């Protein structure tokens, strides 16, 4: 009994403090659900909104009184009605809750509350402060009235949707007129290996616009920053590049590191041809044919090509052995090590050191050679088995003939 009384008292106290209280009646939707765009918001649309799901209503942002059915009262200035929110006021309005750690903690203690301060540092925030209302504000990227949590696949900021969200403005040449930035980033990104990883392979950690440019603090990366951005994922390449002779040379020439060879939005899957002299080659853009660097390039390319061919040959030999039913799974496992060596050798290109590349190539060649031998040995074994089978079948045939003759003898 005592426990029950305490529980009831706590419940009454909680209710009196206002916790858990939400306005259950939302008269706004009674009219707005039947109004045409842009004033129309249906109950169905609003039900998907994360704010609605957490108990907030139209009043939470627009003010007014949603309890009364009288529009003159519900949308009166006296009731605190704000009407349509001015674009310039949107970040501050969102920030009134989202920048308040004490308030946000009740919904998600791990949610960041620095979005507004970050936004002020972004190019969008700076331009907005300067009076440019064309730049993106919170609702442009997150949506409005059906604003979903970022981990909702339907959210405009879900990883696979981010590029489309950014492209809504940045790929619109008419809209971007007056800004000195290109509008082909989205088209280029569509051809990139990053987009392929994200959209085709479904790797949600693959880079999209915000991965390199940031989200709330979005800014175009500068010369140094590009390398910082790439190195967050491509750690080994960045470490090798930092220690290489190219680092100082690129910095001195104000060249933006990685982008010089790999491009930016349309980063393609790198191939060994980049080290060559034909289409897609990059070294000779700066180097002179026949110089020491050109020779080193040619040697590294030759080593990579050699290992690549050795891995392919071993793969083919093992595939033939497998199709003949031979057990070569150990060698198959070895092939993944050989491929690892090839990857490491390719990564080592960023050090621009022949000896380091050669070290990985030699390791890979040794493994691939062993695997090739395993495949060839399996085929020799297959032939030996078939020869053994032939001899066995002849022996069995002779026994069968002997038995048949014996049966004939005893029956006649």
């Amino acid at each position: 009994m005592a426990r029950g009384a305490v529980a009831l008292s706590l419940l009454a106290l909680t209710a009196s403090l206002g916790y858990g209280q939400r306005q259950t009646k939302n008269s706004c939707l009674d009219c707005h659900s039947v109004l045409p765009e842009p004033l129309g918001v249906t109950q169905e649309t609003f039900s998907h909104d994360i704010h609605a799901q957490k108990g907030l209503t139209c009043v939470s942002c627009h003010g007014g009184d949603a309890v009364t059915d009288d529009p003159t009262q519900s949308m009166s200035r006296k009731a605190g009605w704000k009407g349509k929110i001015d674009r310039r006021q949107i970040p501050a309005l969102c920030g009134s809750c989202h920048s308040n750690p004490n308030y946000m903690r009740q919904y998600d203690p791990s949610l960041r509350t620095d979005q507004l301060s970050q936004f002020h540092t972004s190019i969008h925030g700076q331009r907005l402060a300067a009076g440019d209302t064309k730049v993106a504000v919170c609702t442009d990227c997150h949506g409005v009235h059906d604003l979903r949590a970022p981990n909702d696949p339907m959210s405009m900021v879900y990883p696979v949707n981010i590029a489309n969200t950014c492209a809504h403005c940045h790929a619109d040449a008419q809209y971007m007129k007056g800004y000195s930035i290109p509008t082909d980033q989205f088209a280029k990104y569509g051809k990139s290996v990053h987009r392929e990883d994200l959209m085709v392979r479904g790797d949600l950690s693959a880079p999209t616009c915000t991965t390199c440019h940031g989200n709330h603090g979005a800014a175009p990366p500068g010369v140094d920053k590009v390398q910082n951005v790439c190195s967050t994922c491509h750690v080994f390449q960045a470490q090798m590049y930092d220690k290489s002779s190219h680092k100082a040379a690129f910095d001195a020439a104000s060249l933006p590191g990685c982008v010089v060879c790999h491009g930016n939005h349309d980063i393609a899957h790198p191939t060994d041809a980049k080290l060559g002299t034909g289409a897609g080659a990059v070294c000779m853009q700066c180097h002179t044919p026949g110089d020491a660097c050109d020779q080193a390039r040619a040697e590294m390319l030759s080593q990579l090509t050699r290992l690549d061919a050795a891995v392919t040959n071993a793969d083919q030999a093992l595939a033939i052995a497998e199709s003949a039913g031979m057990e070569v799974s150990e060698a198959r496992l070895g092939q993944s090590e050989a491929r690892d060596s090839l990857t490491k050798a390719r990564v080592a290109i960023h050090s621009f050191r022949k000896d380091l590349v050669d070290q990985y190539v030699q390791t890979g060649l040794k493994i691939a050679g062993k695997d090739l031998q395993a495949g060839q040995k399996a085929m020799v074994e297959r032939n030996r088995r078939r020869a053994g089978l032939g001899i066995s079948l002849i022996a069995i045939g002779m026994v069968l003939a002997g038995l048949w003759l014996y049966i004939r003898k005893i029956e006649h």
Partner: protein
Amino acid sequence: MTVLRNMRNWLYERLEWDDLIAPLRKKTVPLHRLSYWYFLGGITLFLFVIQVLTGILLLLYYRPGANEAFESVQYIMTQVQFGWLIRSIHSWSANLMIFTAFAHMFSVLFLKAYRKPRELTWISGVILLVLAMGFGFSGYLLPWNTLAFFATKVGTDIAGQVPFIGHPIMIFLRGGEEVTGATLTRFFGFHVAVLPGLVTVLIAFHLLLVQRQGMSVPPKVERDWSANPSAKRELKFFPNFVLRELMAWYAGLGVLGALAAIFPWDLGVKADLFASAPAGIKPEWYFLFMFQTLKVIPSKVLFIDGDVLGILAFGLVGLLWLLLPFLENGRVALSKQWITGLSVFALAYVIAMSVYGYVTN
């Protein structure tokens, strides 16, 4: 030759086997246009003997356990001298044995060899076929590869659908709620101890009955011989029939060797308990007709769960199949018609559903 003769005489003085083989010398086998069906039982027995011999050899290297099974079979296939041959013959022979057992059963059915006084021969034979399928099911998991792992998961799931006793059976088979290393060790136990013991006893009983009752003569041949006794022909069981059986065994050995050398049994990829099931997972071919039937039954038939209905139907059909010899009544002509019709339908159904299961995902 003198040494051999002396050895034979030495043994004969001690064993005096004349009495033992006298019945075999008197025994005859009916000789007619359908006599070749008589060899199927013997070939099945030969394949079982091959299974026992190769199984014992595999036991020298096989290690049951989730962390060792796959690697030990891999070792047998790659490192052990002729290990590949022994394992491939074991796997091929297992499949051929079930095939010949099925063929033997349907030949017995079509030749009406299950009739009085051979009811017990039929019953022991059907139970032997079920046990052979149990051998296949338990042995399939032993290499602990991905396909086997998921096939066992699906198979034991189906067993778990049996009303009332299904869940305890599934727990018993798996050694827990899931297919794990515990399942592997108990399947190993079933495969090398429980099933061989049961099968050996039943084979002995089955052979004893065959020897006591002799070969059944198909009704039509029997009628022809009754009408014309001079047409009746017989073959001495020993040595004439035995030598012919020996020829069949030798031919079987050649087929097994060729299959093992040209198509060594695949090892697959080691089972990963946390991986998702590969697409289009299917059981071994001899379970395919049942598996496919369960797949085509709607999820709900009236108020009964489709899978449960399918399992109950197979259980009922299996029981009727076992008791088939007792379903023949006195009206021989009528029963002959419906049992032949049923046999043709059963064979067509098994083949059609197996092919359907094989070609669809």
